[in-house]
């Protein structure tokens, strides 16, 4: 029995190996087995003609394990690092060091290193560290080193009796694997295929090595390099457009340093019209969405998506409780069962996660889960296998696997070797560790493979984007293909948007102008003073909010906003007056708490902010009522509804009406913000005078109207208008109302915020307001002084932000 090793350039290896497989008799092919370094590569090779069954070496090793031993589940090395004994000074406070140590041990063991001798490094107690990991791994779980040990003990061979074992796809071989090959070679024929310079000469000398080459060199390989973006496209798009037409014909594979790059290229290909799936499957995406919901980090939007995805099978409360239970899980086995419970509740497969849930209990022999590590581990576990068989359209592999696909052409994504700088390690200066660390880490292998491909005259083509340091022959520009056709009417519409809104100096249907008929049809039967004020503060906001009824939604407010605080203040004052409570700080606080109960804050607002607002409002309202000379007995009504006619049929509600001891009424409008002067009416400051008018006509008794600032911000100020003053202002108010009516009737709802107010500051419609592009709005405003004259009259100063 023997081992034959073939070496050569990638294209030579591809060619000879394909020929070798073709030469196999059907019986030989059926008995043979191709061993590959990964499941992904095995799956791809199995699709090629004449290829015998292919198996990833890890899968074979797993099959060899005894029943009571299982390979380490995902995230095990992370978990081990969390529980590693404290390192000595000065290392014990270095964040990231335990994980680095764990990874180093992992890499060492994958490379077949049995232990790091303490002499090799005076920096850390390696012998104790190694021993600690060994103890953990000898209790039910197995890493690569132990799996090789078990496989050797079985003495089994992957191929059927006497069949060939083809070792293919290994850009690097470790000591235990070599030992395994030796054992296979003693029991049957083994053929191993390597690229030149990827396996050291010493190893090759042990076996019969044959150099393979191409019968006729093909000349220099063609290379496409795309170094700079074209107008309108980035380099990835250029690359994708160039590759897209050729994918089916030329067997492309893509090389990706990590998964994010793969997704970018897939999206670029999808943009080119290829049927690439850029959406994650429900199974894949649901697990992180569930975790986000269950952790309570999400707002209503996330919850809504999750609800739609699970179709109400699981409630948010259940999800939150699940997270609590997971955090308190006393054992890994229980955590595993919880994961399984979640899977069943969601009615999905989650195959990888399910397997993880079974395997993770091995750690119960050593340490229980802790909330912090559980919270970090769960999101790391994918619901579906990260080693899914690759897409047949454009497999995305790491370079050291991609290079092995026969006849494939290789597409490098936005990153090349230049971006994969070697990781530094504090242990690199340790001579005993360096060789296997370098071998075990991908970047070193990548560099060798990349060099192989650069030198390979047989490779047809390969393409790169933005890889600065690849000296590619024959850079060429890839012209973008024609842009997809666009509906001509859409083009006209958008050009109209730019021309009429952005460039035209006058207002238009893009800036709040409606036909008079449309405006008339939209107008409500009754108007309220606050609606009129809204128009006065900004006609466009009136159109959007009052006529079109477009309402904004803050999905997950974290704090109590001014509007909510204002509502609480009004409700608390209503409670105080209605119930004629004795004025004490406690009574006011109770009223505020009632208000908060009646008008609850969204669940996303933290308790701290509610507490702060309750405290603040309680103090300020108590102070306000104290300053007002608390006399609830005078109050004739609170939250009184009024209807009346003044140009339009009108309706509204006033905060409080007091019967004054000397006769007459006092109308109080509470304000938590800045106080405008009601005696100086303007389009944005009419409300109090209109209410006063309504009240006077209803009761035919003099009304003193008063704005009362019930907050520190309003400085507990008062602004009063007597009946006589109101009578004197009547014609002025009528004039303003007529001006408003005229503009409304003409359908002009333009983005013209009252220049004397700070209307834009708190405006909910800011995000959709064209006037925010001040440069353009300013041009229009200058063109239409007539429209703006309504806001340019006398008075109305100090009108900011009354609410």
């Amino acid at each position, binding site marked *: 029995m023997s081992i034959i090793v073939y070496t050569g350039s990638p294209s030579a290896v591809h060619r000879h190996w394909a020929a070798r497989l073709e030469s196999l008799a059907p019986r030989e092919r059926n008995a043979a087995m191709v061993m590959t370094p990964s499941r992904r590569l095995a799956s791809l090779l199995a699709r090629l003609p004449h290829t015998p069954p292919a198996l990833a070496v890890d899968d074979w090793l797993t099959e060899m394990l005894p029943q009571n031993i299982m390979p380490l589940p995902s995230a095990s090395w992370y978990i081990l690092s969390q529980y590693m004994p404290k390192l000595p000074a*000065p*290392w014990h406070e*270095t*964040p*990231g*060091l335990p*994980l*680095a140590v764990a990874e180093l041990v992992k890499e060492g063991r994958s490379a077949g290193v049995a232990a790091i001798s303490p002499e090799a490094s005076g920096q850390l107690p390696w012998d104790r560290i190694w021993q600690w990991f060994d103890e953990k791994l000898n209790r039910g779980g197995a890493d690569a080193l132990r799996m090789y040990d078990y496989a050797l003990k079985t003495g089994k061979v992957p191929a059927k009796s006497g069949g060939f074992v083809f070792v293919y796809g290994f850009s690097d071989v470790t000591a235990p694997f070599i030992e395994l090959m030796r054992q296979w070679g003693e029991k049957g024929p083994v053929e191993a295929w390597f690229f030149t310079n990827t396996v050291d000469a010493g190893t090759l000398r042990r076996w019969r090595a044959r150099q393979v080459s191409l019968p006729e060199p093909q000349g220099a390989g063609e290379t496409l390099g795309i170094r700079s*973006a074209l*107008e309108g496209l*980035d380099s990835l798009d250029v690359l994708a457009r160039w590759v897209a037409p050729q994918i089916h014909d030329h067997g492309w594979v893509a090389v990706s340093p990590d998964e*994010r790059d793969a997704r970018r290229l897939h*999206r670029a290909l*999808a*943009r080119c019209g290829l049927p690439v799936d*850029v*959406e*994650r499957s429900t199974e894949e995406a649901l697990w*992180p*969405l569930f975790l986000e919901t269950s952790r309570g980090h*999400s707002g209503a*939007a*996330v919850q*809504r*998506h999750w609800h739609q*995805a699970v179709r109400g099978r699981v409630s948010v409360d259940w999800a939150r409780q699940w997270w609590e239970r997971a955090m308190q899980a006393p054992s890994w086995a229980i955590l595993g069962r919880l994961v399984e419970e979640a899977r069943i509740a969601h009615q999905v497969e989650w195959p990888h996660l399910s397997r993880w849930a079974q395997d993770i209990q091995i750690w119960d022999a050593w340490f229980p889960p802790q909330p912090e590590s559980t919270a970090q581990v769960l999101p790391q576990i994918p619901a579906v296998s990260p080693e899914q068989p690759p897409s047949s359209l454009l497999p995305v592999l790491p370079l050291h696997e991609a290079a092995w696909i026969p006849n494939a052409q290789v597409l490098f994504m936005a990153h090349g070797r230049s971006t994969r700088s070697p*990781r530094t390690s504090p242990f690199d200066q340790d001579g005993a560790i360096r060789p296997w660390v370098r071998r075990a880490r991908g970047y070193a292998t990548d560099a060798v493979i990349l060099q192989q491909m650069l030198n390979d005259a047989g490779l047809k083509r390969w393409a790169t984007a933005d890889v600065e340091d690849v000296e590619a022959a024959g850079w060429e520009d890839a012209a973008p293909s024609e842009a997809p056709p*666009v509906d001509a009417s859409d083009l006209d*519409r*958008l050009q109209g*948007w730019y021309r009429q809104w952005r460039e035209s100096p006058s207002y238009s*249907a893009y*800036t*709040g102008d*409606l036909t008079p008929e449309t405006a008339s049809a*939209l107008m409500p039967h009754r108007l309220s003073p606050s609606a009129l004020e809204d128009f006065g503060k900004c006609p466009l906001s009136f159109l959007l909010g009052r*006529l*079109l*009824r477009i*309402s*904004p939604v803050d*999905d*997950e407010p*974290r704090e109590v906003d001014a509007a909510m605080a204002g509502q609480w203040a009004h409700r608390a004052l209503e409670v105080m007056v209605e119930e004629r409570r004795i004025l004490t*700080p406690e009574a006011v606080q109770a009223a505020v708490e009632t208000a908060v109960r009646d008008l609850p804050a969204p669940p996303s607002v933290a308790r*701290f*902010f509610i507490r*702060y607002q309750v*405290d*603040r409002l309680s*103090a300020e309202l*108590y102070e306000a009522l*104290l*300053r007002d000379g608390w006399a609830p007995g005078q109050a004739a009504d609170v939250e009184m509804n009024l209807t009346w006619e003044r140009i339009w049929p009108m309706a509204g509600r006033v905060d409080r009406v007091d019967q004054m001891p000397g006769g007459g009424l006092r109308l109080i409008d509470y304000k938590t913000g800045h106080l405008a002067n009601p005696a100086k009416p303007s389009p944005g400051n009419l409300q109090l005078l209109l209410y006063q008018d309504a009240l006077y006509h209803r009761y035919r008794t003099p009304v003193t109207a008063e704005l009362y600032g019930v907050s*520190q911000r309003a400085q507990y100020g008062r602004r009063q208008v007597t009946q006589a003053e109101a009578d004197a202002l009547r014609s002025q108010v009528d004039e303003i109302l007529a001006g408003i009516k005229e503009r409304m009737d003409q359908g002009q*709802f333009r983005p013209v915020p009252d220049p004397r107010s700070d209307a834009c500051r708190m405006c909910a419609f800011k*995000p*959709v307001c*064209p006037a925010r592009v001040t*440069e353009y709005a300013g041009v229009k405003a200058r063109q239409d002084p007539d429209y703006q004259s309504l806001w340019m009259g006398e008075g109305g100063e100090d009108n900011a932000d009354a609410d």
Partner: protein
Amino acid sequence: MRMPIDQAARDEALEARVNLLIEAGAGTGKTTLLVERVVETVVHRQVPLSRILLITFMDKAQEEMRHRLQARLQERLESAEEWARPLLEAALASLPDAHITTIHGYCQRLLREFGSAYGIPLGFQVMDAVDTDRLWEETFRDWVQDPEREPVVLDLLHAGIGWPHLRRWAKQICEWWDVPDLNADFPNLWGFVAEFRDAAAELAERARLDASPADPGRTQIQDINRQIEWLAEMPRREWPRMLAQWTRGLAPKGNKKNWAHPDWLTEQKEWVQSLREALAQIRQQMADAYLAEWVSLIGREFRPLWRRQRFGALSLTFDDLLIEAERITRRPEVRQALANRFDLVMVDEFQDTDALQAAVIRRLVSPIGEDHLHPHDQGRLFLVGDPKQSIYRFRGADVETYASVRREVEETGGRLIPITQNFRSVPAVLDFVNQLFEARWPLEPNPEVPYIPPFRALDPHFPDDDRTRLRVEQLCPAGSAAEKRRAEAEDIADVIERALGEGWPVRDGRGERPILPEDIALIIPQRTGLDIYRQTLESRHIPVAAQAGRNFFQQDEIRGLFHLFQALANPEDALAAAGWLLSPWVGLTHQELADHRLKGGSWRYGETDHGHPAVLKWWHRLKSWHDKFWRVDAETVLDWAMAASALPAVLERGEDRAALANLRQMRELCRDFGDRWGIFEFARWFSGQVLDEVPFDEARVPGRESEVAVSTVHQAKGLEWPFVIVANWKPKRTALDSGIHYNPRLGAVALRQEPWLSREWARLEDDHRRREEAEGDRLLYVALTRARDYLWFYASFLDERFPSESPVEGE
């Protein structure tokens, strides 16, 4: 070729074997000098390139330096003698790995090499500003809501210090290099009230009996008395806020004619005055106490937690690189390892360093144990700077560090070498600059005002001619700011038209040629009012480079995408759905939205039974996108929009080049952040950027072939144009922004936030004002020295007269 007038100084800069500080004025060829010194060191001192550290100020400068060095080494190699060739070849070979880096890049290397033994996370990443903000906010929110902290924080909130202020100040404190110890006792409010309460009641009663009811003094004392009564009835927790807010109505009032005993009014006025002063004092004492409490709490508790959090996430901020590098380079063992690493340490733009950077640099070239330059360790330091061009104070650059190192170099046996020969500007421009700044700056450094640079006149290199090269304009003296700008803009348009029409000659590498639009730059100190200039030039058909401002997230096309993300995340968000329809991606009018409403249409895109056809078409799309939204990446959402809307096609037809560039930049953001965080996190971040109006650079628009550049002074630094127009020049705003400020030089922290004003505020503001004024002069120096052939300076906002003004040709 004429020898520079300062050739001897330049030779010395290449040859001297002591520490050097090259003070190189604008346009004097300092980069060339740096490159020459490297080459000289490699060839004549036979120092390998690997033993030279060259620190530049910006990443871009680093690349530029590498290219210049490569070109110069190659040039030398072509004419090198045999013995020098291996040296030059070796230098060229090692150039890709040469230590040419920014100070932050150098510190990062240091920390990677030595940091893990000193608590620096192993394999750390440098967080960008976005991730830093996110992690900080998360950490702060958890910390502040801890039940242990809540009482303290609630007390501060009750004192009337708003939550946004507390949060912003905490962030600022986290950015300080250190936190000073502040101690301030809280004043005795009870004693204060007790002191004034009885007297107020007594005075009010006396006024009631003595003064006529209409007398303002009587009203005033009664108001005061009521204020104190209200105060006494309020819970004590509210007293600080109430006392601090009590600032109105305290100017003593009253008319003796209204008083039966006029002396009593005098007495009352004195008392009111004393109350007023006592209130001001107690307000200040409270401000000091609250400031000390918050600074200490954040410094003592939160800063260490924040450090643990980011280090635990294996992340460092940009500032950490400097702070931690400075910390670990204090360690003797690190100093030992670094002691002989570099034979030459060169620093460009040294005027823009700060004290931390200077400390790290000094330790590379001084004996172990020393933190300053040393007479016995000479020849390894080569600094190049110009204090007159120090314009990065807002970013922490400290020209006083330059001044102190300058002194140190000289006192320890090093040399200061001024380079004054200017190779950029014509004599008329230099004469103007020299006259202007000779009058403002001293010839020698003045230790009393170390932030004011010494001035050495720039020597012209080119011969004078009789063309008009310079003009200073002060237009529209009595006009408003907008009028001044409009007048300047019109005048600028005139002169540009004239220059282009007449083909004013400008120099290029081969001689003279007629001026083109790209030879002209409009340099401004800030962007306020810039639109007026741009609009005016465009209205005169003068091509202007599309401006890259900082309002990326406020652009129509970007806001449109924000609406799309919001709408897809939450189908209940009617405003987002309508915003998408109104955006340039869809382009509907308000009239069409109204029609949709009148047809019974809904703003929920899931409801498609009624409405305007154009709206319903999009509702169907949004519904279908919404169903997949949670399973895709941010870039896919952008792709949906790009494929479904005609906007990209409209933009590619030249409708708005800036918008097209912004969409490309948006794609990068979708990839960078969207792929890192997932779709919902990205949507939240995007929303925050738009709604909070976070400044963010607009995408640079690929230049047309020929257009007038518009540049801020900071962008213009290091650049030059044949024709420079400096306009919109206003005196620098020198007031300190409200909030808290720490001045490490004075060792003082101060607070001003209505109504709080702490004791140290005036001192800090005065210090700040003087330094800002000095920086304003330096900005002007940088702006004016960008001109090669022509300089037009519009100084309409300045009151002073200027030394030189030459008439426009033909006038």
